């Protein structure tokens, strides 16, 4: 029994020790890259603090039930000196619905979340050290495609809750060329458990690595996460993205497997910019198609989580189709239809408008 206990203690201590090694490696890399980073300083304009983000208003109809869904996601970026950046994103969203089984006014709660509040230190060209609350780097959707002005379909993928969300801790990340035609990008992190309101997170360790092939514009990557509490489960993921140069097409694929299940989504978005008929309209129009499946696993799906995203309790597949119209820079109208095929079958409609804003919080004159 004592041996088991001491083994457990060792396992518990092992992660901080590995974290310490990570920090030592980071320090060496920092010193090595100092000269290179000074070159960046010479080329850069002096950055100014910015308030940016997105706002949108959507009408969602799920299984015949209407919901009005306004969203505001403000982002504050505060650069400090040449190598630091404080960045934070809030997420205010709601789903206002009528009372069940009748008329009456729309009502509901506004959810307020702090997606990230992080301090970034660009240690050298290959390494950025991040501390604070950050988006968990697992797959590509959470970090890159989540903002409403970016995502091609407003309905999030079924597997989105697997190993994503936000983490509180330390992250090392970066990207560098491994050859003239291949870039490598990586992120590795340690997150501590927190039950503080707005800072909720699990004790986890994980990472992601990706290879981007410049000429064919293909990215292939993999992610993993280990939960260091409760059931100590593990999650893995794989992603693929391809932008073939001759056509305005964006193909993305993501697979994730966790304790509660596994699944994938594959999405294609085609911009009609090469269509000559009504070109002024067609070049602003994008057609999106997505197929996704979720396979329920052995583990229970958490039901007491405060998160607005939950995994399905049983096997589901859902095809989605959508149209986006880019009215002007940062402003787009979108409409989509999907069919949830599970224990119950129903339609999922979404219509709305998304806007990205960016305003400076300081003087813009060059120094």
């Amino acid at each position, binding site marked *: 029994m004592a041996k088991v206990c001491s083994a457990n203690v060792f396992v518990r201590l092992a992660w901080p020790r590995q974290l310490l090694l990570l920090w030592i490696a980071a320090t060496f890399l920092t010193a090595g890259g100092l000269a290179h980073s000074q070159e960046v300083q010479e080329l850069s304009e002096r950055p100014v603090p910015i308030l940016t983000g997105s706002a949108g208003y959507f009408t969602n109809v799920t299984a015949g039930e209407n919901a009005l869904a306004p969203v505001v996601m403000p982002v504050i970026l505060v650069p400090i000196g040449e190598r630091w950046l404080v*960045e934070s994103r809030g997420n205010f969203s709601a789903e206002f619905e009528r009372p069940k089984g009748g008329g009456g006014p729309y009502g509901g709660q506004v959810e307020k979340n702090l997606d990230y509040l992080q301090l970034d230190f660009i240690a050298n060209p290959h390494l950025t050290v991040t501390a604070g609350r950050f988006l968990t780097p697992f797959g590509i959707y959470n970090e890159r495609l989540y903002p409403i002005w970016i995502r091609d379909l407003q309905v999030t993928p079924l597997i989105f809750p697997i190993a994503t969300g936000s983490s509180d801790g330390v992250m090392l990340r970066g990207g560098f060329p491994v050859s003239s035609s291949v870039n490598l990008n990586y992120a590795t992190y340690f997150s501590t458990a927190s039950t503080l309101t707005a800072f909720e997170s699990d004790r986890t360790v994980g990472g992601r690595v990706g290879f981007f092939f410049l000429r064919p514009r293909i990215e292939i990557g993999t992610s993993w996460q280990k939960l260091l509490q409760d059931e100590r489960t593990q999650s893995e993921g794989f992603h693929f993205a391809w932008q073939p140069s001759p056509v305005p097409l964006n193909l993305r694929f993501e697979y994730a497997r966790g304790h509660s299940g596994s699944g994938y989504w594959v999405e294609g978005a085609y911009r009609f910019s090469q269509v000559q008929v009504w070109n002024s309209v067609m070049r602003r129009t994008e057609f999106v198609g997505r197929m996704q499946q979720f396979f329920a696993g052995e583990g229970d799906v958490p039901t007491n989580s405060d998160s607005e995203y939950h995994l399905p309790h049983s096997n589901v597949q859902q095809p989605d189709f959508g149209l986006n119209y880019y009215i002007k820079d940062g402003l787009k109208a979108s409409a989509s239809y999907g069919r949830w095929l599970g224990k119950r079958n129903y339609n999922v409609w979404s219509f709305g408008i998304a806007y990205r*804003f960016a305003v400076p919080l300081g003087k813009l004159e060059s120094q």
Partner: protein
Amino acid sequence: MRVMPILLSLVLIFTLFGNAHSRNRESANTTVTQRNPDNEAKRVEGEQRFRANCGRCHAAPQKFPPRMMATIVRHMRVRATITDDDMKLILLYMTQ
């Protein structure tokens, strides 16, 4: 329910004020950098890097004033794990 109209109004006010402010400054700032053949080659390379890196996730945004772009590129360098070389070329392209 009461929070959303206030937030949306604030976004609208900031946006209207900020866009007008940015547009006035943009024309003055973007003409500062003088073009030469070497810069032009880097700008073309920067456009390619922009399409390869940024175009994977979103459409090309308007060009913001250089000091705003410097912040945005720093943010995206971290978010999208863009390499140092790509970041420099993209910044050059987006500020000329």
